[in-house]
């Protein structure tokens, strides 16, 4: 599945490609064998949007209470405000067949 993703979106930037792989991983874990390009791309967009929105919202709650560094409460408020349920997140974290995507390699600083 991942080589298919590579082919689909090789022109996109590296982080977007990793989100693509993450979506594919979640789909594989939940029992899908394959996905068409449009739904994969839609879910990737949703994931990217989710992360951006949580960041925005948590930053807002953090600054509202006069802090610079966000704390757990800000993130929880942001997630609750977005209607995301955190009910069974511990069970989800401990699910048996989970894959971990290798973090992208950082390019060495150019030598001049």
């Amino acid at each position, binding site marked *: 599945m991942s080589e298919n993703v590579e082919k689909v979106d090789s022109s996109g930037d590296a982080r977007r490609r990793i989100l693509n792989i993450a979506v594919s991983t979640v789909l594989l874990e939940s029992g899908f064998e*394959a996905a068409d390009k449009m739904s994969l791309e839609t879910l990737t967009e949703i994931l990217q949007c989710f992360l951006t929105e949580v960041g925005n919202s948590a930053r807002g709650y953090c600054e509202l209470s006069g802090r610079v560094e966000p704390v757990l*409460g800000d993130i929880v408020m942001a997630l609750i405000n977005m209607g995301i349920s955190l009910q069974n997140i511990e069970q989800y974290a401990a699910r048996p067949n989970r894959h971990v995507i290798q973090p992208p390699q950082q390019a060495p600083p150019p030598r001049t």
Partner: protein
Amino acid sequence: MGSPSVGMEEDNGAGHALSDFLLQLENYNPSIPDSVVAYYLNASGFESQDPRLIRLIALASQKFLSDIANDALQHCKMRTSSQMTQSSKNQKGPKEKKYVMTMEDLVPALQEYGITAKKPHYFV
């Protein structure tokens, strides 16, 4: 972490459970690498030195996607099972089931989460 937000004390225990859970995230790796999540969070103005918060967000996003995928899978199973009973009259070969995610299943699943997705007129 010395001054948690005021709201946390009020939501009877849920906040405590989550802060306990946060401690477990110290040596836990979600599927999405920290650096990628941190990039998107930083892009929207969120900057944290605590990797556990980033991992919590990564987990929450993964769970959100997983819930959507599960719903879509149910749609897919229902759709294919109704097709299978129709086609089984003609051929009785034991076909192994392969679930393919399509927009047909994804759109009603997203609808339940309040996301309206439409098939674009063109898609490259």
